[in-house]
C-alpha cells in the first residue's frame, strides 16, 4: 500500500464515531506517514532501514515486543500517571483548603496558617518523593499476568482513571480531609487550655498541629494506595516522615541569627509535649483516612474490578500465576449482578458481567464505546483461545 493510503486509513479510524486512540506500527519507509498520523507511532528497527524508527514515538527491535510494551509497560505507565495526577491535586487540596478556612477566622487578612518554611517545603521535601517513587515503581498486577490476560486492559480503557467522577471523588476526599484537619484542631483549640501547666498555645502551634496532621494523612493515603512495596518505597515514605519531624525539630530548635522573626522557636516541641495534641493528631489522621479505607474495602467486596480479582487470585496462588496458567479457570459469578451500581469507572459494563468459562464473554448493557484489543492480540499471540468474544452490539470500528 502506498504511504498516503495507510495514513488515510488511520485518519478514518481517528475520526470515526468513538474517536479512539490509535496506534500504528511499521518498519518500512512506506509506514512513516501512518506512524506520524496515528496518536502513538511505533517503529520497528528492521531490515528496511531506520526511517520508521526515526519518525516514531517508540522504537522496538522486534514485533513481538509490542505485546509487553502495550500490555505491561503501557498499563503500568497509565496506572502510575493517573495516580500521580490525582494524588497531586488531592494533596494540594488538603494543603490549601485549611488555609482558606482559616481566613474566615482571621478577618480575611491573608494570614497564612503555616510557617513559611512549611509552605515552601511541603511540595518539595515532605510529600514529593513518595509519589515520585510510586510513579516509577508501582506494579498493581504481576507482569506475567498482564501479558497473559489482555482483558485487564479494559479496566483502564477510555482514560477511565482520569475521568470526572474519579477526579471529583479525589477532590471531595481532599476537601473532607481538610475540613476534618482544620475543624478538628479548631474545636480542640477553641478557648481551651491544652497543657497540664495552664499555659496557652498560640497561632503557630495551631498551624503546626494542622500541618503535622496534613503531612501524615497524605502520606498514609499513599501508603494505602501502594500495592508494590520495594525497599525504595519504604525508604522514601518513612524517610519523608522522619525528615519532616527532624526538620521541624531543627527549625524550631535554634534561634536562627539570620532570621528576623523567631515565631517558630520551640513551637513543634511544645506541641509534642502536650498529651491532647498527640491524641488529636492520632484521631484526626484516623478520621481523615477512614472513609477512603471503608470505600475501598466495600467496593472490593461488592463490586470488584478485574484487576482486583486478579490480585486476589495472585495472592491465593502465591505468585504461581505465570504467563502460562490457563486463566479460563478463574471465574467468579457475581451474585447481585442485576442491579448496576455507579462507580468511579463509569461506562464499564464488565462489573455486572457474568463471567463464564469463555474469558472474553461480556454482556454489554450499554453501547460499547471503545475498541478492544482482542483482534490485534489474536494476531500477536498466534492462537485464539478466546472464542465468541461478544454477545451483543459489536464495536463499530476496530483495528
Amino acid at each position, binding site marked *: 500500500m502506498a504511504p498516503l493510503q495507510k495514513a488515510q486509513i488511520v485518519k478514518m479510524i481517528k475520526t470515526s464515531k468513538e474517536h479512539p486512540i490509535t496506534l500504528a506500527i511499521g518498519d518500512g519507509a512506506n509506514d512513516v506517514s501512518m506512524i506520524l498520523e496515528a496518536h502513538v507511532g511505533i517503529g520497528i528497527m528492521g531490515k528496511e532501514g531506520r526511517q520508521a524508527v526515526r519518525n516514531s514515538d517508540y522504537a522496538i527491535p522486534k514485533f513481538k515486543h509490542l505485546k509487553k510494551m502495550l500490555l505491561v509497560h503501557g498499563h503500568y505507565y497509565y496506572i502510575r500517571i493517573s495516580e500521580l495526577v490525582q494524588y497531586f491535586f488531592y494533596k494540594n487540596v488538603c494543603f490549601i483548603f485549611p488555609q482558606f478556612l482559616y481566613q474566615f477566622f482571621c478577618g480575611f487578612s491573608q494570614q497564612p496558617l503555616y510557617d513559611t518554611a512549611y509552605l515552601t517545603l511541603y511540595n518539595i521535601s515532605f510529600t514529593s518523593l513518595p509519589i515520585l517513587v510510586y510513579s516509577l515503581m508501582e506494579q498493581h498486577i504481576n507482569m506475567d499476568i498482564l501479558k497473559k490476560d489482555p482483558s485487564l486492559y479494559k479496566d483502564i480503557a477510555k482514560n477511565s482513571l482520569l475521568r470526572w467522577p474519579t477526579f471529583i471523588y479525589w477532590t471531595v476526599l481532599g476537601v473532607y480531609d481538610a475540613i476534618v484537619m482544620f475543624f478538628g484542631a479548631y474545636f480542640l483549640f477553641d478557648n481551651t487550655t491544652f497543657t497540664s501547666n495552664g499555659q496557652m498555645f498560640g497561632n503557630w502551634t495551631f498551624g503546626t498541629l494542622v500541618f503535622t496532621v496534613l503531612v501524615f494523612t497524605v502520606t498514609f493515603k499513599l501508603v494505602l494506595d501502594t500495592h508494590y512495596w520495594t*525497599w525504595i518505597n519504604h525508604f522514601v515514605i518513612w524517610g519523608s516522615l522522619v525528615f519532616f519531624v527532624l526538620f521541624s525539630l531543627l527549625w524550631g530548635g535554634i534561634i536562627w541569627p539570620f532570621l528576623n522573626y523567631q515565631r517558630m522557636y520551640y513551637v513543634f516541641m511544645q506541641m509534642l509535649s502536650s498529651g491532647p495534641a498527640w491524641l488529636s493528631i492520632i484521631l484526626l489522621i484516623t478520621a481523615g483516612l477512614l472513609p477512603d479505607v471503608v470505600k475501598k474495602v466495600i467496593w472490593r467486596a461488592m463490586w470488584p474490578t478485574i484487576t482486583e480479582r486478579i490480585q486476589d487470585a495472585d495472592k491465593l496462588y502465591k505468585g504461581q500465576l505465570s504467563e502460562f496458567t490457563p486463566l479460563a479457570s478463574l471465574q467468579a459469578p457475581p451474585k447481585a449482578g442485576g442491579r448496576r451500581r455507579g462507580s468511579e469507572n463509569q461506562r464499564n459494563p464488565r462489573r455486572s458481567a457474568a463471567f463464564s468459562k469463555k474469558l472474553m464473554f461480556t454482556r454489554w448493557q450499554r453501547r460499547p464505546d471503545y475498541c478492544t484489543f482482542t483482534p490485534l492480540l489474536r494476531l500477536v499471540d498466534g492462537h485464539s483461545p478466546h472464542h465468541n468474544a461478544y454477545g451483543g452490539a459489536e464495536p463499530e470500528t476496530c483495528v
Partner: protein
Amino acid sequence: TTASPCSQSLLGKSDEQSGSLVRHRNRKKSFNRIMGKEKSKTGPLARRPDNSAFKQQRLPAWSPMLTASTVLPFFYLLALTCMLLGVWLLLTVQRTQEIKVDYTEAGSCDVCFEMRKNMSKAGQKCTCMITFSIEKAFKGDVFIYYGLRNFHQNLRRYMDSRDDGQMVGRKSSLKSPSSYCKPFDVDANGVPIAPCGAVANSMFNDSFLLTYYTINGPSIVPLLRKGLTWYTDKNVKFRNPKADNQTLAEVFEGTTQPSFWQKPVYKLDPFDPTNNGFINDDLIVWMREAAFPNFKKLYGILYRANKPYTNGLPAGNYSVIISYNFPVQYFRGRKELVLTTVSWFGGQNHFLPVAYLVTSSLILLTAVVLTVVWWKFGKDGRNMAE
C-alpha cells in the same frame, strides 16, 4: 559501506559497518578493558538494558491488599481502643471545673466602660468590682485567665508588626527597630520605641485582685504572677539587652515606651529584676498571638501554700477588684475572667472525648457493616478464584 583501502590500512581492521563507528567502539572497548569495566557487548544485542532486578522492574516486593479479612480485625481493635480512650478522657474532663465571668459591663464596671469610650480620659484610672460565687470547691491547681472576645490577634498586619530581634536582646535592633513595626517603630519625635510593633502596643493592662469572703471577713486570694510562660520563651526567646553594670533604665536609654502604655518597659515590674523589661511574664504571654478571635491568656496561678487555699479554691462568695484599662468597645469585644482547674489532659475540653467516642462508634458501625458484607458476598465466591 566498505572501508577504502587507504582507511583500511590505517585502521588495521575491516568491518561491514562504517569505519568511524568501529574505530570509536574499539577505542571505547579497549578503554573499558583498561579501566576494568569488562562490557564486551557487540552485535545486535549491544544496547540491551541490564538484566538487573532494578532495571527489569523485578525488585522483591511486598504486595498487601485491603480486603475485608485483613481490615476487619484492625477495625474492631481500633473501635475498642477509641471507645476506651474516649470514656477515660470523658471521666478526666468531668473532674475539671471552670467558671467564666464576663465583666465588660458587669457590676460597677459599666461606669468604667462608659469612661473608656472617651479617648481623652485614657490616662485616668478606673477601678470597679464584680462578684461571683463558687458552688463546688475547685480542687487542685487553679489557673486564672483573662479572656477577650472578638479581638483578632491573628490578623496578618498585626502579626507581622513585631520585632523578635529586638526582643531577643540584640543591641543593634534596640535602637533601630525593624520596618515591619511601622507605624509603631518610632514615636512622633523620631525616638525608637521599645518594644516596637502593634502587638506590644496593644498589651492587655487590666489587673485583678481576687477576694474571698471567709467567715472572718474578706481575704485576698494570693496569686503567683510568675511561671505563666513557656520556659523557652522566658529564658531564650525574650531577653533584655545586655547590661554591663547598668540598670535596666540605662540600658533602655534612647528609646521610649509604646504610645498606648502607661509606663516604660523597664518599669513593668520594678521589684523583680527577673520579671522586668522584655522578660516580663505578662508581656511574653501577650506576645504569643492567639489563634482565634475568642481567646484567653494566663494571668495567674493560685498560690496554695497557706490556708484556706491549700486544696484549691474553697466554695463561697468571691469578688474581684478590677483596674479597668483595656477598652474593648472599639471592636465590639468582650472581656471576661476565667477560673479553671486543669488535669493532665488540659482544661475543660469536651471536644476530644466526644470526638473519640463518636469515631469509635462510627468505626464499629462500619466494621459491622463490613462483616455483614463480607459474610454475604466476600466469603463465597465473588472474590475467590475457584
